[in-house]
């Protein structure tokens, strides 16, 4: 989703009448709870498949999508916006004469989808003229009629709006009582009801749920004109409303008492902590620039993994298809052949589309491929990429990795990032033990500013909370910290990863790629990890 769409819907700019087209229409909350009859979807899909093959397509897939979203937006004691949206329609993709064609329609009649299928076939035939090599699809065995559902406990769409509003206003009140000057909090809920059918003989009905609770707590010192914010330490998740149960067992308390969260989140407790920590930032000393050993909490590391491993190992970027927008990649194919030393032997990174609670967890991808987990970096060495059906042959593979996704029925599916995660260390290691080994370091919690070049070499990251580490002990909260890395050097500087008891997920609700841009949601897991001798800069400036 584009930033301006998000701002429009969250009411942070302009009037409420502007609903981004990709969100479809605004509906009543009750309509978020309904589903489409599978028999009707199958009938529509069969109409499209028959029309495409009748028109000369050698392959066809049909995606019947109902994309539901709910936003509840508040600041302090006010509700700024409550919006429910639905976008429903059908996307048909075909191969004809060796070329791709795509067409989409929101006409949900058999005639309507058949017309779209014929149009897609005509487009494919027209494209075939300028195609340099025919599409090669890795084989997929049809699975017949199957269904899959995110394993949620409580469907967020069924929770009354009043309860959601009350919860956010209580969170805000708690932050204000704890010393915040301002607080913005949002509930953002997604349900993708997706039906996929293809000429391979698959009819796959999936019900995918996601939840996100962005929050910004601001503290101000009027006399000096200084202001500081602290954002939520939660993660967007592929879970239901039970994520907000805030179970004590899901609290991860660091050696200096900072509370992070695992499989569930206590938003109110985090708001109170945020208010105090934002206030403390106003007087925290500024970092001295130089080389430090960084101890990175998973609430921070997910973004570094996302930018410096997830993106460079997307095969379409490696090949050059994203050169004009997202960029290319330093991790070229020859590096896989040479088993490039991407990181130290502590670094084992997997792509995983079957991780419970993750944003990318689905049963099948958007071209009907059963999802799986596979290695990208093993003992520090580059071993693989992320691919889809028409790319697998380039890697010498006989099957797709299941990374195909479209953000809407009207968007063409293409290769998107799987959940990409750093595996926990095999030896038992707690955060306290890891810190005890650090002479001169910084402990970083939460994600902050992030920027990386178009080939994913040079990156800079901030955070939410920074604490000095001196001679094995955590010290004062400090400010103005950002670290700069060159990707391979950074991952080769990884000296320790905590064990699996510390493992948690972070993630992005809006990862943008493609032209026109599409967004996808993806998680990245890790345990707390240490990186030695990393260049830290001071970001404080004076405007005079």
């Amino acid at each position, binding site marked *: 989703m584009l930033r301006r769409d998000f701002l429009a819907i969250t009411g942070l700019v302009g009037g409420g009448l502007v609903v981004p087209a990709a969100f479809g*229409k605004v509906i009543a909350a009750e309509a978020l709870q309904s589903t489409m009859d599978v028999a009707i979807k199958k009938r529509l899909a069969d109409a499209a498949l028959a029309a495409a093959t009748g028109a000369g397509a050698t392959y066809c897939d049909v995606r019947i999508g109902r994309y539901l979203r709910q936003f509840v937006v508040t600041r302090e004691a*006010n509700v700024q916006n409550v919006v429910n949206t639905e976008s429903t329609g059908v996307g048909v993709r075909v191969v004809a004469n060796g070329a791709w064609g795509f067409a989409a329609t929101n006409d949900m009649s058999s005639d309507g989808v058949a017309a779209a299928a014929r149009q897609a076939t005509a487009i494919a035939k027209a494209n075939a003229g300028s195609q340099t090599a025919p599409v090669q699809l890795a084989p997929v065995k049809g699975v017949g009629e199957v269904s899959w559902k995110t394993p949620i406990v409580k469907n967020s769409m069924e929770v009354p*709006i009043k309860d959601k509003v009350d919860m956010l206003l209580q969170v805000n009140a708690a932050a204000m009582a704890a010393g915040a000057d301002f607080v913005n909090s949002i509930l953002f809920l997604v349900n993708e009801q997706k039906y996929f059918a293809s000429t391979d003989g698959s009819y796959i009905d999936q019900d995918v749920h996601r939840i996100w609770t962005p929050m910004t707590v601001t503290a101000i010192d009027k006399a000096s004109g200084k202001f500081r914010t602290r954002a939520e330490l939660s993660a967007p998740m592929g879970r239901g409303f039970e994520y907000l149960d805030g179970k004590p067992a899901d609290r991860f308390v660091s050696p200096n008492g900072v509370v992070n969260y695992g499989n569930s989140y206590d938003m109110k407790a985090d708001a109170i902590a945020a208010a105090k920590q934002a206030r403390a930032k106003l007087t925290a000393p500024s970092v001295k620039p130089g080389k430090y050993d960084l101890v990175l909490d998973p609430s921070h590391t997910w973004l570094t993994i996302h930018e410096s491993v997830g993106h460079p190992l997307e095969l379409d970027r490696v090949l050059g298809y994203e050169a004009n927008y997202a960029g290319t990649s330093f991790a070229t194919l020859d590096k896989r052949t040479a088993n490039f030393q991407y990181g130290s032997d502590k670094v084992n990174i997997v792509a995983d589309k079957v991780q419970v609670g993750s944003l990318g967890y689905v049963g099948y991808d958007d071209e009907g491929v059963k999802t799986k987990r596979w290695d990208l970096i093993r003992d520090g060495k580059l071993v693989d990429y992320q691919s889809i059906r028409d790319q697998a042959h380039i890697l010498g593979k006989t099957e797709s990795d299941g990374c195909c996704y479209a953000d809407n029925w009207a968007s*063409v599916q293409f290769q998107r990032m799987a959940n990409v995660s750093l595996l926990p260390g095999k030896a038992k290691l707690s955060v306290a033990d890891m810190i005890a080994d650090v002479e001169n370091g910084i402990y970083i919690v939460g994600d902050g500013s992030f*920027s990386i070049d178009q080939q994913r070499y040079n990156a800079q990251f901030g955070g939410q909370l920074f604490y000095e580490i001196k001679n094995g002990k955590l010290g004062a909260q400090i400010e103005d910290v950002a670290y700069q890395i060159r990707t391979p050097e950074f991952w080769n500087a990884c000296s320790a990863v905590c064990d699996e008891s510390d493992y948690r997920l972070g993630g992005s609700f809006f990862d943008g790629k493609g032209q*026109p841009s599409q967004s996808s949601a993806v998680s990245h897991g890790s345990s707390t990890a240490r990186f030695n001798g990393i260049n830290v800069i001071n*970001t404080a400036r004076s405007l005079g």
Partner: protein
Amino acid sequence: MSFPTEAELKAILLKVVAMSKADECTAQITGTTTGNIRFALNNVSTSGIVTDTQLSVQVAYGKRVGIATINAFDDAALERVVRRAEDLAKLAPENPEFVPAVGKQTYRASPTFSAATAAITPEYRAKVANASIAPCKAEKLVAAGFLSDTNRFVAFANSRGNYGYQTGTTLDYTCTVRTADGRGSGWVARNLQDSTSFDAGTEIRTAMRKASASAEARALEPGKYTVILEPAAAAGLISFMMRFFDARQADEGRSFLSKKGGGNKIGEQVYDPRVSFTTDPWHPEAPVMPWDEDGVPREKMALVDGGKITNLNYSRFWAQKQGKRPVGQAGNLLMAGGTRSTADLVRSTERGILVTRTWYIRMVDPQTVLLTGLTRDGTFFIENGQIKYPLKNFRFNESPIIMLNNIDELGKPIRVGDDEAEMVMMIPPMKLRDFTFTSLSDAV
């Protein structure tokens, strides 16, 4: 696909407004047709056309607001969407910041529509792709690009007698050209309202020249340098800074435009006296709709004049609270400059760095608007008025406020939009002292 006529749209809007039993009702119909073509590795990869027409209805009972939308226009559908908005309003919590709909206004039309852009066909798009790819193939370069053109209308009416209608078009073209060995990269972008003057065959030469010329890049120690930022390179930084020109944010103490002790910096000297920003919906090269998203008429207005803050953007709620006259939120940004081109600025530079494009700009510290990002697609060393050799790309950490106090010279503004800026802008090339590069990047 042709859009409904203005008379047809007005009839639907008035019917909708009359149907509503709420205290007030605003109806808006928007329609867009967007065509695009994408190419990479010297091949067309995708192309498509998306048409969307939508009716939005907002009603209010007291301070309770409901919004519903629909894309059908028969009487039953209109009735349904009005009742849905009313039902939602009755259930909605009160919004203490609710401001009633604007009363009857007189809008002066702005020249946002180009018949040439609206008439773009799939064949035109294919020709643009071919005009970009063919010369690259001939010189063993590799092109990846995107063309997107939009034709749109907006019409609205409310129960207080207000009504507006206008059409608009835009064309946005970007192309990245790389050498076959991946050691050089160049880029070109054009954002236009009227496609008449657009010629991909001419534009692509800029990206091709930069790709070839940037292939043997040398490393220069990071530090503070005199730079010439081309307009596209400067626009991203300016764009981030303009997010803070919101009056409420400044008054609340969370902006670089907040004053110590409270209030905002209207009237204070914040930039070099050569810095002036205005907004003007009728600007011939960068026109925008003459009303904002609330229907408040936009005006020609200076935000910064002679380096002093003269105006901020007030929402209707905040204007009412602060006793200010509400003016439409800025839809474009026009930065004043001189008459000289980027090439002229290079010719008068003894020692400096030319930056084609900035990339992945992110906020590091909102207190000072410290931004980080990277150069890409053509960074060159200038000596004695000439481009001497290509440079490896840099990461910068710089605040646009500091940057706009270190001006050597501003050139002639050109239009920048879409990818590089959040709103349509006229931005000059700028020669700046002491621009802060903090590390080198190996990326090409």
